[in-house]
């Protein structure tokens, strides 16, 4: 992965690698993408986060020119992306949501095949294939047919097939669906490694923790639109929630809850499942106020915790619904 290190993370902020302008895609009546806009800079790991059906995969397939779209412009590497723009395609790696490998070819043959579509020289290809195998930790399974691989290994093979040719821009469409934690960590670490070596990554997922850990910039999507874009800090700063308090309470009288709700600055307090949650801006004093109120009301409480907002909170506050499944 050494050859393109020159365009490492420090190149970030330069000309955008992906630029999408007011993309509209309809499936009959359904508007899958509604004036979708996107800009990805060189060296980023860009996360597309959204619930199922929010248009992440459609957006990627449109960017790749696999899908026709009604309106809008897509340019990759500063060039308009067309389905016969092979110069651009050569610089892209794709890892689809569905595992797309030949059942009849072994691990090494599959990787060699897909790599061979980009790199004609045999010797170079062999080196790249070996590197990809080492990279995805499939060394022990070189001669295995895909159907002998476990789900996680199969996902790794799927990724290996997409990145073996060392693309500058990699699209990863939910690569960790149905993968065990070890494999997932392995995959995420691999993506960081690719990025360190200079690749720009577009990553979609509906696992917010994953996106939060991995991505340098994130776009939250809902109903075919970008709801918010920025670094995770920027996103979290967008919302009122600065801190979220959770307290285990066996029985919370209605009037105490009312009192908590009445505190200036606490904009949300709910009690359900023996659990009190309250949201307020992060300034450190609301927590003490709430605990005071509870003590005055003689309410016994168990564990109390306070945590900074998650992307889920961001999504919840903007769209009014949970991001989680």
């Amino acid at each position, binding site marked *: 992965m050494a050859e393109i290190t020159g365009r490492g993370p420090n190149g970030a902020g330069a000309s955008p690698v992906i630029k999408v302008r007011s993309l509209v895609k309809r499936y009959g009546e359904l508007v899958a993408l509604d004036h979708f806009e996107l800009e990805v800079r060189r060296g980023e790991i860009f996360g597309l986060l959204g619930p199922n059906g929010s248009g992440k995969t459609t957006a990627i397939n449109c960017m790749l020119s696999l899908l026709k779209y009604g309106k809008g412009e897509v340019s990759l590497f500063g060039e308009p992306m067309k389905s016969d723009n092979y110069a651009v395609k050569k610089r892209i790696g794709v890892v689809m949501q*569905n*595992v*797309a*490998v*030949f*059942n009849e070819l072994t691990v090494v043959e599959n990787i060699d095949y897909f790599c061979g579509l980009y790199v004609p020289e045999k010797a170079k290809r062999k080196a790249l294939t070996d590197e990809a195998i080492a990279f995805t930790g499939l060394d022990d399974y070189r001669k295995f047919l*895909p*159907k*002998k*691989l476990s*789900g996680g290994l*199969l996902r790794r093979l799927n990724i290996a097939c997409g990145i073996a040719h060392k693309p500058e821009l990699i699209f990863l469409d939910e690569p960790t669906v149905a993968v065990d934690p070890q494999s997932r960590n392995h995959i995420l670490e691999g993506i960081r490694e690719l990025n360190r070596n200079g690749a720009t990554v577009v990553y979609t997922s509906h696992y917010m923790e994953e996106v939060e850990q991995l991505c340098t910039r994130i776009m939250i999507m809902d109903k075919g639109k970008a709801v918010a874009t920025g670094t995770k800090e920027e996103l979290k700063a967008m919302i009122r929630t600065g801190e979220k308090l959770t307290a285990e309470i066996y029985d919370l009288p209605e009037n105490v809850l009312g009192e908590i709700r009445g505190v200036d600055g606490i904009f949300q307090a709910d009690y359900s499942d023996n659990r009190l949650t309250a949201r307020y801006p992060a300034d450190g004093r609301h927590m003490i106020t709430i605990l005071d109120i509870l003590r005055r009301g003689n309410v016994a409480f168990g564990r109390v915790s306070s945590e900074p907002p998650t992307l889920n909170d961001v999504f919840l506050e903007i769209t009014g619904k949970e991001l989680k499944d």
Partner: protein
Amino acid sequence: MKVFKTCNTIIKRRITAMALYFLIFLALTVIMPILTADQHTLDFFEMKPNFTVINRDGDTPLSEGLAAYLGARGNKVVLDDRLETLQDASFYRATDYIIILPQGFRDAFFSGGTVKIKTVATTDSAKGFYVDMLINQYLNQARFYGSPDGMGEEALAAAVIRDLSAETRVETKRFGAGAPISTGFLIYNRMLSYMVIILIILCVSNITSAFRRPDMRMRNLCSPLKPRSMSLQQILCGVLVSAAVWVSLTVLGFIMYGSELAAADRRTVGLILLNTLVITLLALSVASLVSSFIRSANSQNAAANFVSLGLCFLGGVFVPLDLFGEGLLMASRFTPVYWYSTALDNIFALTSFEWGVMAPIWQAMLTQLIFTAAFFCLALVIGKHINQSEKSFSSVQTELDA
């Protein structure tokens, strides 16, 4: 009955494919007997060999007389005097006998020379023998008049034909019960076995293939439904399809041959229908068995074709059983369609409804039913075995329709 209902839904979803199979094979069922009517029916038709006269000697009363004489006893097929045309016609038996009158034949004939007529016929064929006989009879009769000088050639030819018009009286004795059933219907019913088998295999395997995918199989096995019940419900859906096949083919048969069957004995027609019903059941059992082995569309196609063609060729559907060698005949007794053909032939040759005459028919039908039961049992056993074998799991669907 969830599986059964799902099968029906699958039929609805794949109706295009099903309808296509039905339409095409029903169309073939209509065409096939029409195109095959005259094939291999050695002992049924009024015998009129097809012959062709290629006259390179110019039209003479002698040659015209010969053509007229043969024309009364055979069907004249007109062909161009081109080698390829003659080759094709003789290869495909469009003509049984080609008579080539060489140049100078007439002159040589009357001057007592030996210019022979060149003939092309299938070696040792009975038809060839018959036409040979007719030609020699005509020419020997003509030779009897010697030269045409006295009476004129036309009068000579006329005299020969007059001489040869003496005919034997032939009486035909009918031993059969009722009017005979048309040969067209016999051939229709013979072909029907092929149609039934291929159609049912295609449709049934199409439905069950949805259940054969390894992940589906694993999922189903986790349900509280017994594998046997699952198989039985799929077979039940097959019964529905088979009934549709049988009814359409039966109705089609009556539409095409109804008028010819009007005079036939009802009991004979009933037996024929019973026999087709038996082969339909048999086809369903074959389909159940075959579809347990099918996993991909590719093999579905090949299996349907080869199993149906194989069984039908061995069973004497396309080539009559009389042409089989002794060993092959023994082998084909171990295949089910043989018994269908045997029952059918016996029904058509039926002379009375006495037990002695009927016995072989009942026996043949019973044998088919035994085959049916055996195939069903085998299908259930294999279904159970495949469901339990480790090999049928551990496969992941990574391509569409892989």
